[in-house]
C-alpha cells in the first residue's frame, strides 16, 4: 500500500515541471538523483536512482558501466526480472529505478562493498552525453521513503 507514496510523489514533481516549467527546449535535459546501493550480501548488488528529463525530447538509457564490476539494467515485469537493452527516459518525465521495480544489477563485484562506500557509476544514453553518478552504499535495509 505504501508503494503508492513513492511514485505519486515523483509524478507530482514531474507534472509541476510540465505545467510550470518555462523551457521549450526540444532536447533531452537529464539529471540524476536519489542514487543508492543497499549494502550487498554477496558479490551481487542492486542499485537504484532516478533519471529526470526536463527537456522536450525523450532519451534512452543504453548502458551502465562501473569500476566495481559488470552492470546490467533490469526491469521487473510482474514477478520476473528481465535484463533489457535500453530503457526510455520520457520527455518531461523520469526513469525511476526503485526496489521491486527497475534496478541496476551489479555482478561479480571485485571487492566487498560496505555501508559508507561510494560506487562510481557511468550512465550512457542514446542521445545525451554520459552522466557520472556517485552512488553511496547505504544499509542493507535502507528505505528511500523514510531515509533510513
Amino acid at each position, binding site marked *: 500500500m505504501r508503494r503508492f*507514496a513513492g511514485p*505519486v510523489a515523483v509524478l507530482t514533481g514531474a507534472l509541476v515541471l510540465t*505545467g510550470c516549467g518555462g523551457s521549450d527546449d526540444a532536447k533531452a535535459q537529464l539529471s540524476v538523483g536519489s542514487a543508492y546501493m543497499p549494502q550487498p*550480501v554477496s558479490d*551481487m548488488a542492486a542499485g537504484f536512482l532516478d533519471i529526470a528529463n526536463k527537456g522536450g525530447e525523450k532519451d534512452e538509457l543504453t548502458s551502465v558501466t562501473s569500476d566495481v564490476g559488470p552492470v546490467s539494467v533490469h526491469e521487473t515485469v510482474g514477478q520476473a526480472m528481465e*535484463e533489457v537493452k535500453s530503457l526510455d527516459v520520457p520527455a518531461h518525465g523520469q526513469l525511476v529505478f526503485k526496489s521491486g521495480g527497475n534496478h541496476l544489477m551489479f555482478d561479480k563485484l571485485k571487492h566487498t562493498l560496505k555501508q559508507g562506500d561510494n560506487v562510481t557509476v557511468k550512465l550512457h544514453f542514446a542521445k545525451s552525453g554520459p552522466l557520472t553518478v556517485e552512488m553511496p552504499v547505504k544499509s542493507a535495509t535502507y528505505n528511500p521513503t*523514510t531515509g533510513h
Partner: protein
Amino acid sequence: MRKKTFAAAALLAAATLTLSACGSGDDGNSPVAVVSEDTATQAATVLDTPFEKPDLVLTDTHGKKYDFRAETKNRPTLIYFGYTHCPDICPLTMNNIAVAKKSLPKAEQDKLLVVFVTTDPARDTASELGKWLKGIDTQFVGLTGDFATIQAGARTLGISIEPTSKDKNGKLVSVHGTQVVAFSPKTNGGYLLYGQDTTVDDYTKDLPKIIKGETP
C-alpha cells in the same frame, strides 16, 4: 484493505492533477494527509483460514535433512522462498527481518525461526546458501533440495515459483512470489502474510506478537 488502497491512490492522483495545472498550494497538502493515514495501517494480512504447514523435507545449510513440520513445531516461524542470485527483494526482505529480529531480547531471538527456501536449488547448494545467509543472520535456516518438492510446498502457501530459466540474454533467473508467511507457535497455522513492501519497522512491531502467537 485493497479497496482502501485504490481510494487513496485516486485521491493522490486527483491532487497530482491539480498541481499539474499550477493550482494553489493548498491542494498540495492533501496527499500528505492521505499517505500518513495509509502508513498507519497494518503491514500484515491476517488470514481468515490459516495455511497448514507445507510438507517440506529438504536439506539445510549443514547438508543435513530438515523436516520443516517437525523442526518448526510449536515455534514462531517465518518462511520465505527466494534465491541467492536475486539482487533486490530477496536480500532486502531477509535483511529487514534480520534487523527487526536483532531488536528482540535474546531469548525471543532464539525462539524465532526464519526459514529461507531456495527457488533455485541447482545453484543454491547447501554451502552456497549457508555462505549467503551467514552474511544476513547466522541463525537463519536455509533449505535446498528437489525443485518439484519446493514448488509443491510453496504452492500450498499460495506462493507460485517457476523453475530457473534463461532470460533472453542467457542469464539465469528465478521467478518467485515474494510473500513471507508467519506461522503461529500456538496453532502451527500460517496466519499472517507479509508483502515485499514490509519494512524493518513493520517487522519490529509485529515480531513480538508473532513470537507469542498473537495477531498484530
